[in-house]
């Protein structure tokens, strides 16, 4: 199933940092079907912006039928979404993609920048020993949402918060250990995590990103290279929107 497309009502919108917003949508069909690490497609009302915007599900609440999205304003679509107010409507499709595969192993959750949001729901679901490592450019966000779920460690580029440097600097500095990594963030960060996981002989599940058109696996816009021939595409390509966005770091090449 590729999720449902529906018109959702905005429950609330809140600004978390300079350009970071938190949007809560009333979308019961999506909330009840969601898993940590899945995403939704948001549609612009402006016909000039035809393509859906993929945004990770930060949290979902099956009781209240809500889905929370946390996003950074970077262009036309996200700018439009940031102006939505309680009661407004927006078209949304989801849940999309595979989500994380939860394992009962000592976990390190790593979120870099706008890759942090999916860690919120994941951290709530993982019922095991876990460390949460977050990388920020400068301003922090979502700390209050993550701290109840586990020990939080921070790295920032300017060193204003936590360790100066990136998430791996924080892992080394605080001597954080685990048997599995769950990560979402910019590609260079994911690349470094893959190397780290291989060097330490541990599993890493990483959430990848690419430009999307259909969001459901039909158009082949959003592929990444895979180590083995993919059963669906019959070439060394996997569809991030359908087979991902979460992959075992060792099965993809980037």
């Amino acid at each position, binding site marked *: 199933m590729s999720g449902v497309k529906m018109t959702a009502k905005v429950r609330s919108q809140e600004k978390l940092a300079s350009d970071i917003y938190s949007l809560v949508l009333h979308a019961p069909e999506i909330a009840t079907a969601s898993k940590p690490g899945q995403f939704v497609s948001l549609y612009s009302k402006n016909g000039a912006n035809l393509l*859906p915007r993929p945004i990770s599900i930060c949290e979902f609440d099956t009781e209240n039928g809500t889905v929370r999205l946390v996003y950074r304003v970077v262009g036309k679509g996200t700018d439009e979404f940031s102006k939505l107010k309680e009661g407004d409507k927006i078209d949304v499709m989801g849940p999309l993609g595979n989500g994380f595969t939860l394992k009962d192993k000592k976990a390190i959750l790593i979120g870099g920048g706008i890759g942090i949001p999916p860690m919120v729901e994941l951290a709530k679901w993982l019922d095991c020993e876990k460390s949460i490592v977050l990388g920020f450019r400068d301003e922090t966000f979502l700390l209050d949402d993550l701290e109840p779920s586990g020990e939080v460690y921070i790295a920032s580029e300017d060193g204003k918060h936590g360790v100066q440097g990136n998430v791996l600097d924080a892992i080394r500095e605080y001597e954080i250990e685990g048997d599995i990594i769950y990560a979402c963030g910019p590609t260079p960060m994911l690349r470094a995590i893959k190397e780290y996981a291989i060097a330490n002989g541990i599993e890493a599940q990483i959430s990848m990103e690419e*430009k999307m058109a*259909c969001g459901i696996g039909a158009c082949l816009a959003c592929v990444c290279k895979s180590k083995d021939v993919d059963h669906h595409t019959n070439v060394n390509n996997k569809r991030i929107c359908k087979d991902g966005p979460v992959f075992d770091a060792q099965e993809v090449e980037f």
Partner: protein
Amino acid sequence: MNLSVNIAGVEFKNPVTVASGTFGSGAEYGDFVDLSKLGAVTTKGVANIPWAGNPTPRIAETYGGMMNAVGLQNPGIDVFCKRDIPFLQQQNASIIVNVCGKSEKDYVEVVERLADEDVALLEINVSCPNVKEGGIAFGQDPKALEQITKAVKAKAKQPIVMKLSPNVTDITEMARAAEAGGADALSLINTLTGMKIDIHRRSFAVANKTGGVSGPAIKPIAVRMVYQVANAVKLPLIGMGGIMNYEDAIEFMMAGATMVSVGTANFHNPCVTLEIIEGMKKFMEEKGIEDINEIIGCVK
């Protein structure tokens, strides 16, 4: 009320199909659309062997449309016949197979492989570079187009639809070449070659540098070309390029198309095809049109 149309002797329950490459083989959109309700499902371009396609980014949004350089990634004809055709049959969908290749031999191989399959039409994508002729697309040279049409027609068991590229000076010259080669029908338009530059990164928006522009931004060009071709050849046409709603679909039919394909609009609304069919019915009711065939090419 009659919505059924006929292309080269093949009957379709209504004039609405999907544009190749925007709908996969229907499996994913099957969650949103009852595939048996479409006039036909036109599948993603398939070659004799698997193609890995282009590096990413493969697409970029453009104003009122998009640009793609997917590079015709496809699983190859063997997997297609084993998996995708049976799936579509199971869904009771009428099938138009879009075929791509890098040489005459590639195309012919695919068409021969499909001879015994339950396929309504073969749509031949001639916007692919002809490797032997230094990479110029088959569809950009009238001689090459006539030749590939002849070669495919000689082996095809199903009627062939030559899909024209709009990246030419005179589309009617290409239409006539395909007609001379023995095409049973024509479809148009494929995407218009474009370019987008990311000014912040000082790089091309798609890795391939250029990509094919589609979506409502190209619609007026597509309607013009359908009209020109309708008046230049006797063949039935499948029109496409930026169709977003039933009004757009009717516009293409009035310009001369017997069927229409909906492409990029599926990305904006996965249910759009069925909404277009419903809209057409409403339009016919309102205007007292008994048979959709009445409007084909009605604007002269």
